[in-house]
């Protein structure tokens, strides 16, 4: 049947059929996007992405844990010794070199996402009786990562420092996370 056709006919035929199938493929592919996108965070989830915390009652040497995006956020009112220990630390030999100033907005308060950067466990160190690890900050019991007073990784398998969430001070003692 096709043999009788001139090459020109053949071209026209190929063009029409190929564009039909191509358009069909485009249509099917664009139907796939909503199926994938529905698994992304929904509008109400995104709207809840900020939390306000009042630090008025948080005394020196105390820590609180608040929930933000379903994860614990550590806020610690650091003592003078902890601040100076964190500030004085030399960057040499740190696995993920960052100065303390890069990690805090107000020296008194350190705000960290309380999720170990190794495999996502919650480190110990918020309560006074907790094991705080060899550097006095936080210690992850799952695989033994040690963090210092600035939440920097010092020993153990975690690759990076504890994450500092996006936050801002609305007043001296009121912060908004997210």
């Amino acid at each position, binding site marked *: 049947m096709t043999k009788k056709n001139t090459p020109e006919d053949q071209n026209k035929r190929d063009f029409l059929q190929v*564009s039909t199938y191509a358009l069909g493929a485009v*249509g099917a592919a664009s139907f796939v996007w909503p199926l994938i996108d529905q698994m992304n965070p929904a509008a109400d989830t995104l*709207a809840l992405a900020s939390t306000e915390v009042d630090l008025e009652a948080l005394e020196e040497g105390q820590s609180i844990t608040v929930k933000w995006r379903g994860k614990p956020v550590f806020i610690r009112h650091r003592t003078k010794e902890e601040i100076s220990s964190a500030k004085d630390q030399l960057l040499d030999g740190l696995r993920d070199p960052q100065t303390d100033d890069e990690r805090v907005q107000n020296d008194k308060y350190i705000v960290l996402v309380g999720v170990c950067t190794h495999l996502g466990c919650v480190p110990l160190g918020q309560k006074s009786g907790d094991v705080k690890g060899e550097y006095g900050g936080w210690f992850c019991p799952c695989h033994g990562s040690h963090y210092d007073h600035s939440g920097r990784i010092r020993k153990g398998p975690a690759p990076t420092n504890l994450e500092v969430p996006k936050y801002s001070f609305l007043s001296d003692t009121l912060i908004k996370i997210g």
Partner: protein
Amino acid sequence: MKFLKFLVIIIFSINFFLFGRVFAAGSKIEYPEKNWSFSTIFGSFDKASAQRGFQVYKEVCAGCHGMRLVSYRNLAALGYNQDELKAIAAQFEINDGPNDEGEMFTRPGRPSDKFLSPYPNDQAARAANGGAYPPDLSLIIKARPNGANYLHALLRGYEEAPNNIKVPEGMYYNKYYSGNLIAMPQPLYEDGVEYLDGTKASKDQMATDVTTFLAWASEPELEERKQLGVTVILFLIVFSILSYFSMRQIWAPIKNKN
């Protein structure tokens, strides 16, 4: 053309079936039809009207009717900016808690909060309204047949009852309500609200505005849906034409033999 004939038969019989159902379900009361901007194919909401409607809802309806499915942040779709949304939300005292002491407390609303309901639960709503439950308005336009026209008519349907009808205590005569006796007192009066944009708050204006607002609340996806719909259908028409001619081409050798 054979295919067209076929298509006409199919569509005709489906319509017959479906419209039969619609007529069957239709009610006896006729509402005046209004040309709503959101009812057309390329429909969209009149944002200024919806903002005024929100004001009517807030100042008149919200005393009894909640809108528990709508959040303050959703109002962004009506053209409010983030600061305005925060200010609107902050006007309401939202219940929250428990706090660290285990107590419930109230705090100013945030855009992520749902609209504050006037009553803590259905029973309280009934108790405060003589046993009649003021329905939640989040879906009211979708939850009534011919919803927009119905609500618009209902809000303007309060009249003196005809002599032969006795209106019991706590009931009101409304010519568009099924059975004509409604437990809701007339909500809208001339200049019942003072519009922020200076529009004259006639009864009809307020009914139109609040209907527009509630239509948006029922179907916040409407504009996006219709825009996407036009694109999708244009695409499918092109695809139908292409596949039709491809089919003709592929079948040509078979058809020609006969």
